[in-house]
Structures are given as C-alpha cells and as structure tokens.
C-alpha cells in the first residue's frame, strides 16, 4: 500500500471519528474538539494529496483552514464559556430553547 492511500485511509478514519464525536457526545467542549478533529483530518488529506501530485494548492489551503480554525476556536470557546456561565453546564441536550 503506498503512502498516499494509507494517509487517505487514516484521514477518513479520523474524520469518521470526528463525525461520530459530534453526533454522539453531549459535552459542547468535546463536540468542539471533534469538529477540530474533522478539520485536521481534512488537512491531512490535503497535505498528502498535494504531496502525491506535487502541487502546492493543497498545502496553501491547509494554511487557510488552520487560520479559519483558529478564528473558530476563539469564537467557539467564547460561546461555550458564555453558555456555561448561564446554564452552569455544557451539556448540549439542555440547550433546547428553540424546540418547536
């Protein structure tokens, strides 16, 4: 198995773990971390394919993703802190004020 295929496989495994984490965990913090995991799985795929095809586009996009992720972390953490302050918990199942 060549490296690219292996890395792609690893990336998809990581992404799936991230998806499952988002869907199954209750703690907002852990959901958040799972989102980060999905982002980084995507980054891994970008880097390996860029390496495989000798193109820089993938590498560049990874930088963008990292920058956006950093911004997202800043905003997301702030939200979680605020939620925790009002609800005294980060359990997302309790955040159901918009239930129809």
């Amino acid at each position, binding site marked *: 198995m060549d490296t690219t295929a292996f890395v792609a496989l690893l990336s998809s495994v990581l992404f799936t773990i991230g*998806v499952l984490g988002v*869907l*199954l965990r*209750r703690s907002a913090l852990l959901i958040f971390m799972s989102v980060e995991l999905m982002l980084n799985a995507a980054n891994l795929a970008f880097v390996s394919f860029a390496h495989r095809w000798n193109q820089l586009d993938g590498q560049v996009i990874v930088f963008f993703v990292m920058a956006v992720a950093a911004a997202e972390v800043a905003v997301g953490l702030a939200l979680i802190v605020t939620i925790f302050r009002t609800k005294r918990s980060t359990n*997302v199942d309790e955040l*159901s004020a918009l*239930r*129809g």
Partner: protein
Amino acid sequence: MELYILSPILFPLLGLLINATLGQRISERAISGVATLAAAAAFLMSALMFGQLSGGDARLSATVAPWISAGPLQVSFGFLVDRLSIVAMLIVTGIGALIHMFSAGYMHGDPRFRRYFVYLNLFLASMLVLVMADNFLVMFMGWELVGLCSYLLIGFWFEKLKNAEAGRKAFVVNRIGDVGFVLGLLLIFATFGSFRFDDVFAQAKAQGEALAGAIGLITLLLFIGATGKSAQIPLFVWLPDAMAGPTPVSALIHAATMVTAGVYMMVRAGVLYELSPLTQQIVALVGALTALVAGSSALRQFDIKKVLAYSTVSQLGYMVAACGLGAFIAADFHLLTHAFFKAALFLAAGSVIHGMEHGLHAAHGAHVDPQDMRHMGGLARRMPVTFLVFLLGGLALAGLPPLSGFFSKDEILLEALKHNVLVFALLAASAVITALYVGRQLVLVFAGQPRSAAAAGATESNWLMTVPLIALTIGTALAGLFNFPTTHALTDWLAPVVPHGETPKFMPELAATFTALGLGGLGAAWWLYRRPERRFEEAEAALGRFLAGAWHFDAAYRAVVVKPFYALSTICAQVLDVGLIDGAVNGVGQLFRQAGAALRSVQSGFVRSYGLMMLLGIVLAVAYFVLNAR
C-alpha cells in the same frame, strides 16, 4: 353676481355650518334663531330675484365651476333662476322658513335639537340646489341630497326601530325610482350630448320628430324617478311611513320640498313630455289612479298624520295627472296652493299632537297614542287657533271656494275634462273622497266631546307655533289669487318658460258641481261620524282592512319583494358566506395549522439531531454530485 344668485343656497349652508360648529355652545333659542334666519334670508334673496325677474330680466344664471370634463361630457355647477325656478324657490324658502320657526316651538327640549336644525337647513339647501340647477346632473345632485335629508329626518328619532325602518324604507324606495332617473340621464346624454336644460330642450324642439323614440324612453325613465320622489303608484309606499319623523319634517317633506321634486322635474322637462304623447298618457293615468287609490286609503286611517300623508299622495296624483295632460302650469299652480294648505294642515296636526302630549302629561299615566284620532275629539274649544287653521286647510284641500285649493283643483279638472275623460272620472271620484276624509278627520279630531284624558287636558300651543300657522292660513286662503280664473297671473308668468296649451275657460257649472260634491262629502262625513265610537271598528271589516292597508300595496311588496329578498340574504349569509367564503378562508388557516403541527416535531431542540440531519444532507448532496460527476 354669482354669490347673489347662489345666496339662497348659501344662507342655509351658512346656517348649518354655524350650528354644526358652534351649536354646542349656544342656547336652543340661538340655534333655532340662526336656522330660521338663514331660511328667512334665503326667502328674502329669492324675493329680491323675483323682483328682478318681474322687472324684465328673463333669467339669472351663474356657472360656479366646472364639475366633470371628459371628452364630450362637459358638466359644470351651473345654476339658473328663471320664472319657473323662482316660483319653486319662493315656495321652498317661504314655507321652509315658517316650518323652521314652528319647529323651534315643536322641538323644544329635544336632546338632538341642534342636529335637527342642521338637517333642516341642509334639506332646504338641497331642495334649492334641485330647483336652481341649470342642468340635469346638478338637479340629480339636489335630488339625491334631498333623499339623504329625508332619510336623516324621517329616522330622526331612531331609538325606535320603527322610525329607523321608516327612514330606511324611504331611502330604498327612492333609490328604486332613482335607477330610472339615472338611466334617463344617461339616455339624455346619449341622445343630446349634453345635460344642460337649454341645449337639451332646444335640440328636442328642433328635431323632436326624429328623436321621438328616444324622447319617449327618456320621459318614461324620468317619470320612474318621479314616481319615487313624488310618491306615485307603484312607489308611493314610503310616504305614509315617512310620518315617523317629527311632524314639522312631515310638513317640510310633504309641502315645500322633496315630494314636489318629481312634479317640478316634470314641469321643467315639459318640453320633452310634450313630445311624447304615449308617456303623457301613462303619466296622466298613473297620476289619476294614485289620486284615487291614496285618497280612498285615507278614508280608513286613524293616525292623524297618516290621513294627511295619503292625502298628500293623492294630491300629488293630481299634479302628476296634470303634467300628463300637458297642463304643466296647472300642475305648478296646484303645487303652490298644496304647499300652503298641506303645510298648514301638517303643522296644525303637529300642534294637535303637541297639545295632546301636554294633555297626556297633565293626565299622568294614562297611556294613549297622541296621534290616534280615536282618542281625540272636542279639540275645537281647547285649541281654537289650531282648529281654525285645520278647518281652513281642510276646506282648501276639499276644494271649496274661495280657498286656494278650489282654484288649482278646478283648473286641473277642467284640463282633464278637455283632454281625457277617464282621467277626469278618476280625479272627480277622488275629489269627492277628499271631501269625505277631510270631513271625517275634522269631526274625529275637533267635534264632539273629548274621548280621552289627554284630549280633555289639551292646550293651545305657544306663539312660536301659532304664528306660522296663521301665516300659512293666510296663504291657504289667498293663494288662489295667484291664478284667479279672470286674471291668470301665474299662467302669464310661467308661459314663457313652460310649455302650455290654451288655458281652458272657467266653467261655472263645473265649479258649482264640485263645490256641491265637496259640501256633500263633508256633510256625509259629518253624518257618518256624528257618533264616532260606533265606527271605530270600521277598519276591521274587509273593505276597511283593504283601504287601511293602502290597497295592500305594502303587503304585496312584502310578499313579492321583501320576503324573497330576505330569504336570499339569509341564504347568502348563512350558506354562502359561512360555508363557502368563511370555509375557504378558515380552510387555508387550518391547512397551515396542521402542516405546522406535523412539522414542529422536526424542531426537537436537540443539537445532536440537528447535526445528524446536517450530516445526512451533506451525504446526500455529495452522493448526488459524485453520481452525476460524469
């Protein structure tokens, strides 16, 4: 100049503006003073113009402003004072002013005193718009305004459902006639291309033969309008109900304004009527029939005002019949004399009712209808002025010389004898009937002994009411001089503006016959009612019911028109509206409600289920693009 010509209209308008804006701050006396002065000022201005017209001017006209300007349709607010309209103006403002004054006494203490006088002034102004118009459209505006005012005033005491219904009936029945009038107006424009009297009549005269068909239809349609306003068969049913209004209003409607509008319109459009003999036949017959039907209906009424109401319808029948005979001047003459004696009669009836109410007040508790003649009797001694007025008015109505009614009725009968024997027979019969019901009313109200505590305690009304009564009585007695058979002053005055045939020569034997018939009728009435109690059941008999119900016209309309219409309305309201329209609207609402109820379960509020749905959506979207990649 324009202001001068318009002033008869503007004074009442000014009066109503003052009363409408300041009326709440000034006293009753001031309110009635303003309104009466406005009417009197209008009369003075009319008299000034009359002087000018008799001084030689043929006409005074003013165009205030353009009204409608659309291609060939050019209508302006044009007003015209000529020999015909000045006569009507003098009647309207003169008698109107007296009625205003009488009202000040009659309506004393009414909670809506101010509103009453505002309406009264508006009525006067509307009627003046009608008679002063120089084209059919402005006339129609006045025509409708008069209808509105009658609605407001007939239903003036609207707390009682009966009164409000009477007002509505007057309005609706008049609208039916107005449909004919409007169609006539449209046809006038289609035929002559103008609404102005001058243009229309000039064209009609010039090419009458060619347009005979159209003119026949126009006159017929206008006549339908007149049957509504002037209460002719088949649309007279609103007028007896119009008694629901305050009595001075009845006097105003019956004598000076409103009901004379139809006759005035036909006299004004006499040129057209002259050109269509068929319409004239119809008009004459309808008028004569109305005179007979309404006159006989008056024979079995017990309400003092209803007798007079049917009598008005009957006398209007005389005027309309005269128009149909081509005797427009005789019609206008009868309109003039009738205005005097009917106003006198109505105001005297108002004075009687007022006196009865006072008697009722003094008698405490005994509840009788103050308008029911069965409870009256013996009022001659208690209300001498009112009695004299009523007596002279009644004798004039019965057509006895030398009172005014004699001359005008005689003129119409002469014309009828000359032109149409059937019409003459009908009118002659109703002349006898007139004497009968006048006699019956005089006996029931004034003769014998009081038949209730209210009648026993009745007292004469105050000067505010008796002064107009006396003034009107003088008019009643002397108005015949306007067209005395030897001088024919009114005929000479109107001859330049109203189409007229040769004035029939006074026939002493005819006059003597009808005087004898009138006296006979009065005598018969006195003999029949010398013991009135015995005849109180007469309205119960078959003939009595037939006459008391005005030949069952009302009942027939109720069965044929009103009831089916109510049934249709019920279907519309309960089936069509509730079922169809409300059903559709509510159905749409239900649809969205239920759709929302079904869909709300999707919004669980669980972040993770939103996440799952997002994932599914993304998977589907990606799958779509992957599968369609090729």
